[in-house]
């Protein structure tokens, strides 16, 4: 009897041990966020009862869940935008599970079925991603296979349809996307390269979109292919990256239904050593919008991503006029310098001084015909190396960062901006904005927990809405509490009735990864960084609550 009991115990124990392997690898994680806004009419900033149209409350919310069991993963995402916050595409109104997926992942193969996000290279021919604060999601619904056949080699294959707000894919209601990518890292295959201080990887991608031709006038290509090749070469402190992409003729609503092929080139060259970083980036884009529906002109159904190569600014006024890529044609360059003046030098002082300089400019490409009535033709011819005199965007900014003592530190920034508002925002006929901006941002630490940050900004321009001034004070008690007061004042608006104050008062509490923030006041559109977090917000007036957590 005792023997039997012992055997059973031993057996059960071995079962427990194997079960333990599974349970040790099992986990359930997720995240949750909801943004609630209560709107009030505010005639001064152009918000009336009719604008609100009875929709006094906007709520966006989502939950992600990921279950992991060893090599398996399964996840889902629930969203409810009822009604969406002001500034979001009205087509986003709805609720449901936009993402449901399963994934199996080993050292040799990774399979995903359902919704997924993926990027080939820099995204010039393929990128799906999701940006909650912008309400953007072009996720694929289909299958993805990733293979790691030998050391250094990664092969990817994807197919599916893209998310289009809440519209379910049905036959021919939008295009299908198929793609493949290969990347080879020489360093992973040949370890001798590392010893020589060299780094080399190459990659190539091909993407095709199938969309039925139902056009009554034109005969449109049903299969459109795009191809890209890329190289990343590094030697010591130097790094060179380039990617070139080519797209077969793809007449679309964006390119005025022209039949010419498109191309895009992105290159960057950088040097970095301790205390110094330099980067130069070049870009050329010609007829390179690529969407899974030719008729779509809004910010949706993009198959590719053409990165705008400009500094993404973090202060409200410096971020007021952000550049957006012109997919029909642009030539851009960007230069960036980061330097830290060492400690103990006259300019470096006791703590060292950080300097960063950034310059970017984007021009139009040169076309041999300016006649825009080229629908249904080959369009124009464009010399690859010629730059048009027409400047879309230019940004020169210098930032100095300094710690004065253990309590006080600060950042000062100057920016000079040229912004073709007619092209970038579609305000036809409006003069390009030429502006000078200055920012001073100082933090004083009372003790190890309490700190006060004061931020002052100014923008001086004769165009658009004229001069602005902004002031903010933020008091924080680490690691949980913050309170902030801010005002943006459009004191130089050419129309005296529009010289408005955009004031806000906000506060928040963070416990571990749970964050609750409340804001009351007027919100100007742009990137706002308050209370330790940055996000993109639309214009509004009223009360906002954000609750975010993860587990």
């Amino acid at each position, binding site marked *: 009897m005792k023997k039997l009991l012992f055997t059973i115990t031993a057996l059960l124990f071995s079962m427990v041990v194997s079960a333990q392997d599974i349970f040790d690898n099992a986990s359930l994680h997720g995240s949750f966020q909801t943004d609630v806004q209560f709107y009030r009419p505010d005639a001064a900033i152009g918000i009336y009862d009719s604008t609100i149209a009875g929709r006094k409350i906007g709520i966006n919310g989502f939950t992600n869940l990921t279950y992991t069991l060893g090599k398996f993963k399964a996840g889902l995402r629930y969203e409810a935008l009822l009604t969406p916050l002001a500034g979001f595409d009205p087509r986003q109104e709805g609720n449901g599970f936009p993402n449901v997926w399963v994934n199996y992942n080993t050292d040799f193969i990774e399979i995903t079925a359902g919704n997924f996000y993926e990027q080939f290279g820099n995204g010039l021919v393929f990128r799906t991603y999701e940006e909650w604060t912008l309400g953007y999601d072009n996720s694929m619904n289909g299958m993805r296979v990733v293979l790691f056949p030998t050391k250094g080699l990664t092969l990817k294959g994807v197919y599916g349809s893209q998310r289009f707000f809440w519209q379910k894919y049905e036959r021919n209601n939008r295009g299908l996307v198929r793609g493949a990518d290969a990347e080879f890292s020489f360093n992973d295959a040949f370890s001798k390269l590392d010893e020589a201080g060299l780094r080399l990887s190459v990659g190539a991608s091909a993407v095709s979109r199938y969309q039925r031709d139902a056009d009554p006038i034109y005969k449109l290509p049903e299969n459109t292919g795009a191809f890209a090749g890329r190289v990343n070469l590094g030697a010591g402190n130097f790094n060179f990256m380039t990617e070139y992409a080519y797209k077969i003729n793809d007449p679309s609503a964006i390119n005025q239904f022209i039949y010419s092929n498109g191309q895009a080139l992105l290159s960057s060259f950088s040097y970095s050593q301790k205390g110094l970083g330099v*980067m130069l980036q070049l870009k050329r884009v010609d007829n390179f919008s690529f969407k899974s529906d030719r008729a779509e002109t809004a910010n949706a159904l993009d198959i590719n991503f053409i990165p705008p190569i400009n500094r993404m600014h973090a202060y409200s006024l410096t971020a007021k006029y952000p550049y957006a890529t012109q997919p029909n044609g642009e030539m851009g360059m960007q230069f960036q310098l980061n330097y830290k003046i060492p400690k103990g030098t006259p300019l470096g002082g006791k703590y060292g001084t950080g300097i960063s300089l950034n310059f970017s400019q984007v021009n139009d490409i040169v076309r041999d015909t300016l006649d825009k009535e080229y629908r249904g033709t080959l369009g124009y011819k464009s010399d690859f190396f010629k730059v048009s005199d027409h400047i879309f965007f230019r940004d020169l900014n210098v930032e100095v960062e300094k710690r004065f003592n253990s309590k006080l530190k600060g950042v000062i920034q100057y920016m000079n901006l040229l912004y073709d508002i007619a092209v970038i925002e579609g305000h036809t006929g409006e003069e390009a904005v030429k502006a000078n901006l200055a920012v001073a941002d100082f933090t004083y630490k009372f003790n190890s927990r309490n700190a006060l940050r004061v931020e002052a900004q100014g923008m001086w321009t004769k165009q658009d809405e004229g001069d602005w001034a902004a002031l903010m004070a933020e008091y924080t008690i680490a*690691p949980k509490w913050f309170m902030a007061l801010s005002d943006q004042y459009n004191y130089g608006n050419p129309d005296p009735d529009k010289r408005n104050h955009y004031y806000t008062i906000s506060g928040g509490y963070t416990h571990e990864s749970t964050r609750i923030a409340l804001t009351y006041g007027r919100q100007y559109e742009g990137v706002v960084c308050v209370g330790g977090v940055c996000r993109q917000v639309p214009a509004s007036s009223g009360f906002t609550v954000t609750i975010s957590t993860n587990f």
Partner: protein
Amino acid sequence: MKKLLFILLLLVPMSHLFSQESQLPKVNIKTLNGQSFNTADIKNDGKPIILSFWALWCKPCQKELDAFNEVYEDWQKETGLKVVAVSIDDSRSTAKVAPHVKGKGWEFEVLLDPNGDFKRAMNVNMIPHTFLLDGNGKIVSQHTAYFDGAEQELYQKVKKLVGKK
């Protein structure tokens, strides 16, 4: 006795159910040099790791990393701690990350997550989002947002992990 044994047998698997391990998900991202990197390889020889998600456009993130950098040498000496900063900048800025990191003189490891794959796998909603991992890669605590001085409290937790107080 038999009853006791039975109860014990029942308890053994239960205890395993509750000791869910939060090992880091396996995601392929990039190093600062553009080489591929598997996030399951974020390790520190059994010592704690601070894993922080940041971006060039996020000022509080930079403040947090600057704060880490100022004391990083001392922290490493005292506890063997490692800081890994994951940039979620997309392809518009990935080329700028290395010059920025070097120009700032940051000494810790920086990784690139240009399409947010690792960010999503870690369920990060907002940045800065900072995780503290113990020597086994298990998440001990996490925090969203950064306020001046928050690094002190985080470091107290690190010290507790390595048994120093």
